[in-house]
């Protein structure tokens, strides 16, 4: 027993700790999935369809089998891969139409890039050489590319066996739900009322590719007692359970490991066909097998995001009070249903009403099949789409009514004294203060000054016109209360688990069920545990991503890791303290009631006697002397199921300069003030906001995954899929206000998706604000220079046919090498 001084470590929560994981991540010391080198490892390469929609005739594997190093070439039926039904965990309606999604296509391919055969070889190079020699005889079918056409009578069907291209229709009506009035009635009334107007707009959410930095990779080793799969996945736990359910394997015979994973953005929430094919090949041959995709394979076949047509109707009084909102969506599922694909647009159902008090609301979404790569979760999943729709609409309403756009928002938003507030879409926002975030953002931005400058440039007829865009957003994250997920027919719960193992030397191993892939969990979680157990930050190790150590968890997505997983950790830490208390009392020869725990020390109230938590850990390890009737063990395990989502919010303000001669949009100023509740690590929060902004701004200005009329993806390389780099962005002025969440003990809200959700409409609103003066009404995303220039010219009725050719972009470099390179030209 020792008496301890009060040398409590400094508070960790709130410190801008550098990320402890970065040393191994950025110096290349870690092992990604593709670095796994097992003895006897075989490599596979997947033969993919160049056609969007085609019947598969014969497949000739003869030449491929002759390539030195090739071990086997399998078609779908050789592996039973055509009979597999890859899982969709979110059947949004009881009568949802769901096609069978095989691991390799057997008789018909439904999107360009779908796998039809697999080559297994001793080297990746041999597998790739041989894959080029597999001859597949296709008979082409009509592709299905346009959602509206796809829903018409007599349209070509992606899956004739379903009898329709409609996956499901999902409706929420506040009149029926009792959470508000009938939007249809309110809109009909507004049409007749003199003091109201009805405004209708159509917006387009283009298709995007998540473009995680580390391409997907999977290694399966079938040689041990447990089949081990390493995979670059966000969801090792879900993957394990789904592999068992999908393939009929005993769950306890599978171990899934997500080692360090280089980004996901939702793109690695999947049970990928390639994971299953790798597993089937490994089982068939009884040897370890690896699949690693190329970047082009990734762009073509990993799931895409967004892709919606949004029709919004608002009824509003002439002085700017919104009376009703009607939202009609078409959402492109692509060729099959991904793991949570059909539910992604439905997550938006709760967010179109955003921060506003809208008395009547209807949401009606139809999911559509096309012969394109499937869509599924992508950073924000459903909420960026909703935020874009409503925030674009608020600007449209402001313009129609001649009300300053921020003023219009103020007239409709929930005031800080009105929290907690139950919305028309039935969510209860626990805390928030839109006024505070907005006031701070407006002053950081110098809103009035920029408006003056904008006016001056207009007066001068400056070539570079200024535009100012607003997005006052909120979102629901921290997925999610299990009962709510149940009510939405989601196939799993939303709880999270953590375990703490107190080691004899007083260090702690914390096993978490969430699965980081670049966010910095190890640092933020160590800070929390350091505070809760009163041990040094460096004495905490966060273990994750291996179902052998972390056997229970629901992984990382939907900004849930801290708001749900972090709370499980706090609960586990509380249990450690509770378990340690009687032992400390025993060591101190005091009554348990007299023991208090602060800053890592158990002490006897009113004395200077105490023991550290490390002393207790050592004492239970030795177990020579501990109270009767309890276990010599202070480890703990906890599961947390949230009662509510978390609702970060913020005000994002963007100014752009539009070059009216060229249509080029240059970011001029970007300010955002986000309320993410309690901040554990400000540096990580800022990093998440920065990255989120980059992705959201990229949707507004740069990124798009278009298809040509035959169903070929035109952005098949990173030459054609335009990603911004630091050089294309500006310094972001970020700040935080904080109204701690009242639904979790840390007061935290999610931050992982906030920047992406908020920023897109701020940028597009700014672009339109600059060019509306010429009569421009809307510009599709991404607002490329060509589109902006075309919009200005067609609004002015001046030169510029805007004959946007539907062909691969940059007409340059690799793009044109593929397309234009004449026979016999230079390589």
């Amino acid at each position, binding site marked *: 027993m020792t008496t301890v001084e009060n040398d409590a470590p400094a508070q960790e929560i709130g410190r801008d700790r550098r990320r402890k994981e970065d040393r191994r991540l950025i110096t290349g010391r870690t092992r990604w999935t593709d670095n796994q080198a097992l003895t006897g490892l075989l490599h596979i390469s997947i033969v993919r369809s160049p056609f969007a929609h085609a019947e598969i005739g014969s497949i000739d594997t003869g030449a491929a089998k002759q390539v030195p190093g090739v071990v086997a070439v399998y078609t779908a039926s050789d592996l039973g891969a055509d009979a597999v039904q890859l899982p969709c965990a979110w059947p949004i309606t009881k009568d949802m139409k769901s096609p069978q999604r095989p691991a390799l296509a057997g008789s018909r391919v439904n999107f360009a890039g779908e796998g039809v055969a697999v080559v297994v070889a001793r080297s990746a190079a041999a597998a790739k050489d041989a894959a080029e020699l597999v001859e597949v005889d296709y008979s082409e079918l009509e592709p299905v590319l346009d959602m509206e056409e796809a829903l018409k009578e007599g349209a070509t069907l992606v899956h004739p066996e379903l009898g329709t291209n409609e996956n499901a229709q999902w409706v929420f009506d506040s009149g029926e739900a009792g959470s508000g009035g009938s939007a249809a009635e309110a809109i009909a009334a507004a049409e007749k009322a003199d003091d109201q107007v009805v405004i209708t707009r159509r917006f387009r959410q283009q298709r995007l590719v998540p473009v995680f930095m580390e391409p997907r990779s999977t290694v399966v080793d079938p040689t041990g007692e447990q089949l081990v799969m390493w995979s670059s996945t966000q969801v090792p736990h879900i993957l394990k359970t789904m592999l068992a359910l999908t393939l009929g394997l005993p769950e306890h015979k599978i171990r899934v490991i997500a080692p360090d994973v280089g980004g996901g953005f939702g793109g690695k929430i999947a049970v990928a066909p390639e994971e299953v094919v790798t597993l089937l090949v490994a089982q068939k041959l009884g040897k370890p097998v690896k699949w690693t995709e190329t970047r082009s394979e990734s762009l073509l076949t990993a799931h895409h995001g967004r892709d919606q047509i949004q029709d919004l109707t608002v009824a509003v009084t002439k002085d700017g009070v919104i009376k009703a909102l009607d939202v009609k969506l078409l959402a492109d599922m692509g060729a099959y249903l991904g793991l949570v694909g059909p539910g992604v647009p439905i997550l938006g159902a709760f967010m179109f009403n955003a921060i506003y008090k809208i008395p009547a609301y209807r949401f009606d979404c139809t999911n559509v099949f096309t012969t394109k790569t499937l869509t599924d979760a992508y950073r924000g999943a459903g909420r960026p789409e909703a935020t874009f729709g409503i925030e674009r609409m608020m600007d449209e309403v402001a313009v129609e009514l001649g009300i300053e756009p921020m003023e219009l928002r103020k007239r409709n938003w929930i005031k800080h004294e009105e929290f907690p507030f139950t919305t028309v879409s039935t969510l209860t926002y626990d805390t928030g203060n839109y006024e505070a975030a907005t006031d701070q953002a407006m002053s950081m931005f110098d809103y009035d000054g920029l408006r003056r400058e904008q006016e001056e440039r207009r007066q001068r007829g400056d070539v570079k016109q200024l535009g100012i865009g607003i997005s006052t957003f909120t979102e629901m994250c921290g997925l999610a209360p299990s009962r709510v997920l149940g009510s939405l027919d989601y196939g799993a719960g939303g709880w999270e688990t953590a375990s703490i193992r107190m080691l004899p030397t007083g260090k702690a191993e914390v096993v978490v069920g969430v699965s980081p892939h670049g966010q910095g969990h190890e640092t933020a979680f160590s800070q929390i545990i350091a505070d809760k157990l009163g041990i040094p930050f460096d004495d905490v190790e966060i273990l994750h991503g291996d179902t052998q150590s972390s056997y229970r968890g629901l992984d990382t997505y939907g900004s849930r890791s801290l708001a749900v997983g972090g709370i499980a950790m706090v609960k586990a830490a509380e249990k450690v303290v509770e378990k340690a208390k009687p032992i400390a009392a025993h060591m101190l020869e005091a009554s348990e009631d007299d023991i208090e725990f602060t800053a890592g020390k158990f002490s006897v109230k009113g004395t200077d006697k105490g023991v550290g938590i490390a002393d207790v850990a050592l004492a239970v390890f030795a177990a020579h002397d501990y109270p009767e009737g309890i276990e010599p063990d202070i480890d703990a395990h906890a599961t947390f199921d949230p009662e509510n989502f978390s609702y970060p919010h913020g005000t994002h303000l963007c100014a752009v300069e539009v070059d009216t001669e060229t249509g080029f949009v240059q970011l001029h100023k970007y300010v955002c003030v986000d309320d993410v509740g309690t901040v554990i690590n400000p540096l990580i929060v800022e990093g998440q906001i920065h990255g989120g902004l980059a992705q959201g701004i990229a949707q507004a200005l740069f990124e798009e995954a278009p298809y040509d009329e035959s169903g070929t993806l035109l952005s098949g390389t990173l030459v054609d899929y335009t990603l911004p780099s630091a*050089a294309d962005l500006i310094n972001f002025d970020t700040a935080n206000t904080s109204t701690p969440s009242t639904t979790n003990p840390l007061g935290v809200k999610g931050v992982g998706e906030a920047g992406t959700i908020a920023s897109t409409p701020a940028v597009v609103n700014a672009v339109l604000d600059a060019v509306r003066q010429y009569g421009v009404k809307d510009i599709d995303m991404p607002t490329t220079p*060509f589109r902006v220039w075309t919009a200005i010219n067609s609004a002015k009725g001046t030169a510029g046919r805007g*004959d946007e050719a539907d062909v691969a972009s940059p*007409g340059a470099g690799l793009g044109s*090498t593929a397309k234009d*390179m004449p026979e016999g*030209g230079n390589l």
Partner: protein
Amino acid sequence: MIPASFDYVRPTSVAEAVQALADGGDDAKILAGGQSFIPVLRLRMGDPSLVVDLGGIAELRGVREEGDKIVVGAMTTHHDVTRDELLNQHVKLISEATKTVADFQVRHRGTLGGALAHADPAGDLAAPALALDAEFVIAGANGERTVAAADFFEDYFTTAIGPQEILTAIRFPKYTGWGARYEKFNRVAQAWSIVAVAATVKVEGGTITDARIGLTNMAGTPVRARGVESALVGQTMSEETVRAAAQSAAEGTSPTSDADAGSDYREHLAKVLTGRAVLAAAG
């Protein structure tokens, strides 16, 4: 990267390289900085039987002064071009254009000779070379020959270099004291040009006494904007005269249409960017 398999040689002299190409036949290809060639291999858009790497030939690197010419070895990297004092002083346009190529990594590997031999219509160095009346020194089995810029670029990705020849150097006349500007228009900083304008002008006492203008990506090959050049010469420098002269920038061009730009937009950009390039060059 997993290309189809090929043989590889790394000669140390131009003579050896020429011999290797002759021995390798039609399927032998040259590797310079690899910044265009390696992606072609990686995407399996080409499968040479033999790759002749010029990286070991010291005589192909570096910049030197030869009388009234500045001579740049074909294997001089973009990075070295941007840092070179002789070029900065006498052939500023090529330095300016090279600074806009891709990013640091690419500029450290990519070469001037490789870029010109590749002849991508959106590549940034062909239009300056044309505008500057560069000469191309080409070595082959029959010795060395020199081709004028006007005859060098034949079509998309096609130049006067024969299948078994090597571009060894590029010779530039001196433009000492001329102003220069490469006005590049692209969607993001590290993307290829949608359109770009290479302009270099000589201004004496407020009058434009000479002008050279080349256009990038306005046809399968770089195009000289001769109409603009002659409209400028003899004019007093002013924004109006420059912009008026720039109106003929799209004459004689045949730009393509793609998702980033329709042909009419490219024509419009050529005019706007020509005006801006000349003003900046003269500024």
